[in-house]
């Protein structure tokens, strides 16, 4: 009995010891990198991004800069990565550098998660267009990142099937609607395009083309106008086509969508300049059959486009080495060698104006369009953007819910748009943002 009890006590003591030593290890772990950094002089930076081949580009920098070593950490990309960064920043252990999509940047700024890097950024300002630069300043005096790539929109279409169904490349949205009816009448399984309720970024790009201004700053207050006239016109245009049944409503980037593209059941995709990437991986069978054109216009003779996607590289407000990080971000997005690598390894369309000259070879998927980049640059030249607000995440989530429902039930799209506007305004009011009437 006595022996048993002793043994149990000993066992319990071991357990406790094991427990507490585990705890000690845990608490020691986070402090160890900090302890090692003063020992070595060089700076170690982490960089969250989802640019293909970024580790190769970083390796070039690391060889040239032994004192500033960058580690590239590949992220999933998209909304989840923005959330992950915000959460890491809130928890106090963010990366030093982060890929920030233009629409996510204002929420990073509002959360005080990214730093103002104006001193490092000013010398390279001239290398970017006004419109792009505005996306990283948000119209303020600060600079919250260095633009990396941009996504002007154009129309991708199946040249072979356009010929087969006897339709001309639509120059206006009116012609696009007519073509949609014509195609669907010839084969009820085939659609000219689809409206994706899961991709508010695409819709925002089309709204920019139409002249929408979802957010703007007037004085010291935000103005929210997601339901402005141009966007309402846009929403009702697509809502009408979906209701009529001549445009499909399957979301982009789903297995179904891949299959439709592969099988030639979808003839167009109004998308951004980065589309060759997803097309080649999602619809490999249609390689060499696509061509590009200007996005259809609202009024004949115009030359407008919008932006879908594109990112900047921002420096984390919580970084201990902001200067070194800003130096890397600037090099990455303005140095000719880095830009050439971004184009070659990352298949990006660089935001820096001199980056466009580096693009000569067409993407392999578009080997049938030898002057792909020249054409694309021309079609995208008229792209206009708008200021993104501090709660794009809320607006985009509301968009998905409202347009999911509208596309499913074939109800009014401008009604759905109104609920996006309402949800966005309600969230900003609740948070305490000052709103202009």
């Amino acid at each position: 009995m006595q022996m048993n009890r002793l043994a149990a006590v000993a066992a319990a003591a071991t357990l406790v010891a094991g427990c507490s030593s585990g705890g000690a290890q845990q608490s020691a772990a986070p402090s160890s990198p900090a302890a090692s950094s003063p020992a070595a002089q060089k700076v170690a930076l982490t960089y969250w991004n989802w640019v293909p081949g970024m580790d190769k580009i970083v390796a070039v920098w690391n060889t040239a800069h032994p004192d500033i070593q960058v580690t590239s950490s590949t992220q999933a990309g998209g909304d989840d990565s923005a959330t992950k960064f915000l959460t890491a920043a809130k928890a106090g252990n963010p990366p030093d550098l982060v890929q920030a999509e233009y629409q996510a940047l204002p929420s990073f700024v509002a959360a005080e998660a990214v730093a103002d890097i104006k001193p490092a950024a000013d010398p390279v300002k001239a290398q970017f267009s006004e419109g792009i630069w505005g996306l990283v300043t948000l119209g303020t005096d600060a600079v919250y990142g260095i633009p990396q790539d941009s996504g002007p929109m154009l129309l991708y279409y199946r040249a072979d099937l356009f010929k087969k169904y006897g339709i001309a490349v639509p120059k206006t949205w009116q012609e696009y609607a007519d073509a949609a009816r014509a195609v669907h009448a010839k084969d009820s399984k085939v659609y000219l395009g689809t409206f994706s309720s899961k991709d508010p970024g695409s819709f925002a790009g089309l709204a920019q083309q139409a002249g929408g201004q979802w957010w703007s700053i007037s004085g010291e207050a935000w103005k929210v106008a997601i339901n402005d006239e141009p966007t309402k016109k846009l929403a009702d245009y697509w809502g009408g086509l979906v209701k009529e049944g001549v445009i499909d409503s399957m979301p982009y980037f789903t297995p179904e969508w891949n299959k439709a593209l592969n099988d030639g059941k979808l003839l167009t995709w109004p998308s951004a300049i980065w589309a060759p990437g997803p097309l080649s991986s999602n619809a490999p069978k249609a390689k060499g059959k696509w061509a590009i054109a200007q996005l259809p216009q609202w009024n004949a003779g115009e030359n407008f486009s919008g932006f879908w996607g594109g990112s900047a590289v921002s420096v984390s407000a919580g970084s201990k080495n902001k200067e070194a990080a800003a130096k890397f971000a600037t090099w990455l997005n303005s140095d000719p060698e880095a830009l050439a690598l971004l184009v070659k390894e990352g298949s990006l369309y660089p935001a820096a104006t001199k980056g466009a000259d580096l693009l000569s070879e067409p993407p392999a998927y578009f080997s049938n369009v030898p002057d792909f980049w020249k054409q694309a640059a021309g079609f995208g030249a008229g792209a206009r953007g708008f200021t993104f607000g501090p709660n794009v995440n809320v607006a985009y989530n509301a968009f998905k819910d409202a347009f999911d429902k509208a596309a499913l039930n074939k109800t009014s799209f401008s009604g759905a748009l109104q609920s996006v506007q309402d949800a966005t305004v309600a969230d900003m009011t609740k948070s305490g943002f000052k709103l202009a009437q």
Partner: protein
Amino acid sequence: MTTRKSWAPYLFLTPAVTLFALFLALPIGYTVYLSLRRTKVSGLGLGKGSKREIFVGLDNYVAAIGDGELWAGWLRVLGYAVLVLAVMLGLALVFALMLDAARVRLARFSRIAIFLPYAVPGVAASLMWGFLYLPSVSPISELFGVAPLSQSAIVYSMANVAVWGGTGFNMLVLYTNLRAISQDLYQAARIDGASELQIALRIKIPILAPAIILVTVFSIIATIQVFTEPTTLRPLTNTISSTWSPLMKIYRDAFVTGDLYAAAATAVVIAGISLVLSFGFLRVVKNHAFGEA
């Protein structure tokens, strides 16, 4: 001797109490703390220090309880839970009884075959079924004359994934309990002229009652926390909103729209409801199950 007696029990308790405090009490306490706060922005919210955390008392709870979407979500999940519980536990019981029957063939193989889906992670299972459900890539979507991801069928399609994945585990729990029943009881029953069916209904099920209640409570907790299936299926269809289930609403609030405080309040409300439902169920069935014990 007396001194040893006084500290020994505490020593034994230390690991449990430490773990409880670190991994349960502390996070719960922090959640409650967060649920009483909110960030307040001033002006444009862009400059330094334009955002601060303030104490708002029960405001977040008022907002959480007043949000119709949360209760609509509960209603959807309740319908889903009834469906899943009835079919999954019903099947689990039937399978367990069949495997336990005297003249069953291939018992080992069937047991593993039924249990195997439980080993497939929920996300993988949902994706697999999701692909099977998609109209243009599916071999089965035309089978029932209705698209599995359409508005009218989506609850059944989701329940199907849960039933497929959960039946095996519940069956195994019930089956193990069945094997523990003494064979003498069956022999006595057979001598008295009872058929296999009568043995199952009159002897096995009553003895199994505590185990059935156990798996029911576990299943209630699991199904009202449904998250994986709808979240994984959502990108494939227009029919699942971001607040389809209460847990999805918490996720959306915390990680999509970035309102950790509202999410914390909703989480506390949901935890409360789950507790009431689980313990309520236990209370209702307590006398039936544990009466003799």
